[in-house]
């Protein structure tokens, strides 16, 4: 018996000696800063090398483009934060553009048409959340289904063509400027500030981060998971809905082919702006910076007459590089894995 004394039963082996990183100072260049630097660099280079980039018209153009992209991306950020995803936003934007346009051509007053369209957004978001939370369908699958179905719905509602004949006020909204800034940008700013406030200041925002970084911690802390899931998916659909209405206003038609592949741009903007597809990380400001980079690249490529196919290649490469660099940084910082 005496021989057992020292080490019986030894219990679990020590999995990972972690004491060497006891006092690691957490410092890290946020990936958003890197992306912002890249964007500014691009602005600088373009301003110097072309006479067309740094002009009021072109800058306003970029602002308009980034506004719609950002609104969709802000929305998508919410499901991503809770470790979900929403692939349906592009199709939802098209559907709501067509639906709103149809309601308007039927003679409904603008506020009523917009109100009804937003209700549609809430309904779609609720359906996504219900499918994920109650039916246990993976978010990727249910929103992929939505990507197909809502696009189909947009074609059905519009009979396969664009919806013409919007009231003048609707079409002029997207062209309006206040204080020299496009109305679309103001809209984006207001939505962005509200969502930023929710994320950084409220319990709901915290609970999303908690849920995304460790589901068990959130559950055990007694957080109302159902509420958070519904909130995240409704925000996403609602933002897509608003973006769809703005797009419709910008194009002056309700087009069932609008916003194709916007969901991917939106996800890319969020991820390049520091969001993690594994949940728990991401910000509204970072997402805006990501969207701004992509809008700048698209705009620059147009001005330089670069083939849009190259643009797509460049965007893809950029996403891969930025996420890789960010991961590298994190791995080095945590010192293992």
């Amino acid at each position, binding site marked *: 018996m005496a021989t057992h004394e020292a080490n019986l039963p030894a219990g679990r082996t020590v999995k*990972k000696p972690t004491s060497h990183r006891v006092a690691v100072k957490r410092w890290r260049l946020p990936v958003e800063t890197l992306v912002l630097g890249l964007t500014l660099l691009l602005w600088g280079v373009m301003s110097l090398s072309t006479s067309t980039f740094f002009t009021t018209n072109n800058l306003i153009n970029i602002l308009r483009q980034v506004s719609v992209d950002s609104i969709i991306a802000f929305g998508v950020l919410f499901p991503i934060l809770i470790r979900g995803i929403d692939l349906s936003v592009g199709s939802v934007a098209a559907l709501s553009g067509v639906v709103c346009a149809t309601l308007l051509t039927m003679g409904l007053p603008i506020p009523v048409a917009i109100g009804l369209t937003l209700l549609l957004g809430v309904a779609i978001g609720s359906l996504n959340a219900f499918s994920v939370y109650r039916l246990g369908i993976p978010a990727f699958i249910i929103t992929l289904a939505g990507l197909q179905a809502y696009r189909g719905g947009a074609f059905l509602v519009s009979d396969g063509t664009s919806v013409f004949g919007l009231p003048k006020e609707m079409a002029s909204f997207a062209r309006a400027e206040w204080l020299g800034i496009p109305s679309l940008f103001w809209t984006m700013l207001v939505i962005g500030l509200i969502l930023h406030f929710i994320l950084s200041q409220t*319990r709901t925002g915290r609970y999303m981060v908690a849920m995304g970084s460790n589901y068990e911690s959130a559950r055990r802390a007694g957080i109302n998971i159902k509420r958070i899931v519904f909130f995240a998916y409704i925000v996403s659909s609602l933002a897509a809905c608003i973006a769809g209405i703005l797009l419709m206003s910008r194009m002056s038609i309700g087009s069932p082919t609008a916003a194709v592949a916007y969901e991917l741009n939106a996800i890319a903007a969020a991820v390049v702006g520091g969001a993690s597809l594994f949940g*728990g990380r991401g910000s509204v400001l970072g997402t805006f910076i990501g969207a701004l980079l992509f809008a700048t690249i698209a705009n620059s490529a147009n001005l330089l007459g670069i083939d849009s196919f190259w643009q797509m290649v460049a965007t893809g490469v950029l996403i891969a590089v930025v996420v890789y660099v960010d991961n590298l940084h994190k791995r080095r910082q945590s010192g293992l894995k």
Partner: protein
Amino acid sequence: MNSLLEVRSLKKRFGAVEVLCGVDLTLEAGEVLAVIGDNGAGKSTLIKHISGVYQRDDGQILLDGQPVAFGSPKQARKAGIETVYQDLALADELSVGGNIFLGREPTRRWLGLLPVVDKRAIQQETQRLIDSIESHIPDGTSTVAGLSGGQRQAVAIARALYWEAKVVILDEPTAALAVMERENVIKLSRMLASKGVGVIYIGHNLIEILEVADRIAVMYRGRIVHVARSEDTSQEELIKYMTGYTDRKTA
């Protein structure tokens, strides 16, 4: 005077297997009670009944002399039974304070209207707490992701302490820790007890158990076969009970 926590002839069966066959256990305020036993002896099942994860088939649990029946971990937590799990259940992307207050954040009214999380209050309370337990957590605002296993353990224990838990269950708190950090956890466990908390300490390592516990309960095949004060027992004796050696001899 009632015991803080009393378990009476607790029984649980999973299908054909009787996992707990009548467990009796008492826990006093201010003591560390270690529960040890080989894998499958029923330790986890026992504590999951106390923490509200499982519902018993038969028997009684009394808290402060009152019979209780928890339908969920949330209810147990509300009654003052806090469990620090092996995986710790901390949200990596939240700060130390964010984790301690998770689900119970103090709020204030922004512009007298909207309820927002009172970050300053969290920060101040967290700093006070960190100082009081002399843990080596660098800063209450840093995210948990950068902390070591021992520091994370300290955060989880600090959370239990702050919310004035009556009973804290530590489920193999040192299982994933470096040797140096074990000492800290043992210190924290003793500190919890010194503040009047009843601590249930699940563990494997006998050297550690003898150091941390006031009393030790040994489980074997769904029963508590032996309870002893730490100073009255030895590793050898505990091993005999854990391996059922005494069982065979008396049988």
